[in-house]
C-alpha cells in the first residue's frame, strides 16, 4: 500500500504535519503515522490556552494496540482543537491531511525551518522499519 504525502505541508520526524495560516500553525499526523497505528479509537486533545514549546508532548492518538504522542512542532499557544475528533477519531485514518488536530498561535515561525518537506520526510521513512 503506497503511503500518501501532501507536498504542500511540512513534516516532523515524530510524524506530525504542519501548515501555516498567517501566524497560526495547523497540525495533524501523517499518513505514515495513521497507517502504523491502524484503527484510531481516541484522541487526547491538547488543552486550549496552554503554552507549549517546540517538541513538547501535547496530546496522544490511540488505537487499540498502541498510543502515540503528539508533539507540537512549534512553540506558542494552543488556540483551537478539532472537536470533531471527540466523536469520530477515525477521520484521521480516512483523511490524515484533512483531519487537523490542533492549531498553535506560533511565537516563532522560524521554528518551521527545522521541519522536513514531503520529499525529505518520505526519504526519512524509507530508513525506518515498519
Amino acid at each position, binding site marked *: 500500500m503506497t503511503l500518501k504525502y501532501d507536498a504542500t505541508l511540512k513534516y516532523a520526524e515524530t510524524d506530525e504535519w504542519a501548515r501555516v495560516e498567517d501566524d497560526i500553525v495547523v497540525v495533524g499526523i501523517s499518513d505514515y503515522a495513521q497507517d502504523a497505528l491502524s484503527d484510531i479509537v*481516541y484522541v*487526547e486533545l491538547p*488543552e486550549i490556552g496552554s503554552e507549549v514549546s517546540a517538541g513538547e508532548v501535547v496530546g496522544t492518538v490511540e*488505537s487499540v*494496540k*498502541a*498510543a502515540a504522542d503528539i508533539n507540537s512542532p512549534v512553540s506558542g499557544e494552543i488556540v483551537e482543537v478539532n472537536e470533531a475528533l471527540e466523536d469520530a477519531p477515525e477521520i484521521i485514518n480516512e483523511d490524515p491531511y484533512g483531519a487537523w488536530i490542533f492549531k498553535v498561535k506560533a511565537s516563532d515561525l522560524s521554528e518551521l525551518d527545522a521541519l522536513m518537506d514531503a520529499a525529505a520526510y518520505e526519504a526519512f521513512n524509507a530508513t525506518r522499519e515498519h
Partner: protein
Amino acid sequence: MRYIPLTDEDRQAMMATIGIEDIDELFADVPAEFRYPDLALPAPMTEMEIMRELDMRAAENANLREFASFLGAGAYNHFVPAIVDTVLSRGEFYTAYTPYQPEISQGTLQAAFEYQSMVAALTGMEVVNASHYDGSTAVAEAAIMAVNIQRHKRRTIIISPTLHPQYRAVLRTYTQGMALNIIGDETADNDFHTLIEMCDKDTAAVIVQNPDFLGQLHTPQEMQDLADAVHARGALLVVSTDPIALGLLKPPGEYDADIVTAEGQGLGNSLSFGGPYLGIFAFRKKYMRKSSGRLVGETIDADGKRGYVLTLSTREQHIRREKATSNICSNQALNALAAAAYLAAMGKQGLRKVAELTWHKSHYAARQIDQLEGYEVMEELPFFKEFVVRCPRPVAEINRYLLEEYGIIGGYDLSQDYPSLGNAMLLCVTEMNAREEIDDLVTALDEANAPHIRLNLEASL
C-alpha cells in the same frame, strides 16, 4: 516426577530430535561456577504426607468456625453461601489465564463485566474496573489517578485520620518517589471542617472513609457538603467505603464522589489470614481514560453476536510502558468472581438483609456494653458494623481474658493507631454473630473488669 508426564522414552526421543545426549547440554551457557547449586530444602513429600502436615498446621490456628470473633478493622467475618465456592471451583474459571484471547475467555470476561455492573449499582458510580489488589492499594491508585487527572499540577493529597491506618501507610509507601504531600492525618481530631480548610490550589484530592475505620457514619448530607466544598476548591473527592454497608446505606455515587474505593473481601471472600482480597475501584466516566486496572467492555463479534473484551488497554503497562496509568498487570479476578457470585446469590433482598442484621446486632451489642460499669461506647455519630469502646484496662489484657475464659476473639486494640483514645477497642459485630455470642461477650467484658480478675491477669502476663 510429580506432575511431569514425560516417560524415559519420550525424553530420549526428544533429546534425539534436539541433537543432544544429556539434558545438561541445555544448560551449558550457565556459568560453571554457578551451575547446579545444592538447595537445602526439606525432603520431598507425597500428597498423602503433605495433607497430614497441612491438617496439623491448620489445626494450630484458632479459626472462626470454632471461636466467636468480634474482630474487624478492615477484614470481616461475613456469611459466604456455599454456592460461591462451587463457582470458584470450576476448573474453567480458576485455571484460566487472563482473557487476552477473548474468543475463548467469554466466561471470565462476562463474569467480570457483570461484576463491574453490579458494583456500579452498589456504589452508584458510572464505571467500575475489574479490581485492584485490595482496599489499601485501591486508595493509593485513586490518589495517583487524581494527580493524573489534575495533570500533575496539584501535588497535595489530603487524607482523613479516620481512613484505615494501613491504607494511609500504603498510600505513603506508593507515593514515596512521587514528590507528593500527604497531609491531614497529623491528629486524630481533624474532622471534615479541618480537612476542607486545608484544601487549597495545590490539593489534587481529599480522601475520606465512610463508614470510617472506627465505624462512624457520616450522613449523606454531610458527605454532599464535603463533596461540594472539595469541588469548589478544584479538588477531587475520593471515598473509601464498605460494600456490605451499601446494601442499606446511601452510596457515595449519590453524594458526588469522584472515585470510590472499598475492600471487597466482605462480598463472598473468606478471611484467609489477610489475603487474597479485593480492591473495589469505581469512578466517573469522564475520568475513564486516566484510570488504572483492567476494564472489560461489551462489543460484538464478526457475526454480530454480543461478546466481551478487555478494553482501553492503551492505559496499561503492556502497551504504554513507562507512561502507563499504573504498573498493575493482574487483577483479583477470582475474588471478583466470588463477589459477583455472592451478589447474584444474595441479590437485592439478601444483601439488604445482611446489612440490616449487621445493624441490629451491632447496635444491640453497643447498647449492652455501654451499660457495663467501666466501659463506654464512643458513639457521637451513627455507626455501621463497628464501634469504639473505651475500656477500663488495656485491651490486650481484656482480650486475653475473653480468649482464655470464653473462647472469644475480642476486638481490635486501637492504642497503637489512635493513642489519644486511651484503652480503646474497635468491636465488630456482623450477621455471623449469634445473640448468645454477643451476650457472652458482654458477660465476659464485665467479668474482665472485676477486681479479682485484675490480679490474676496481671500475674499471668
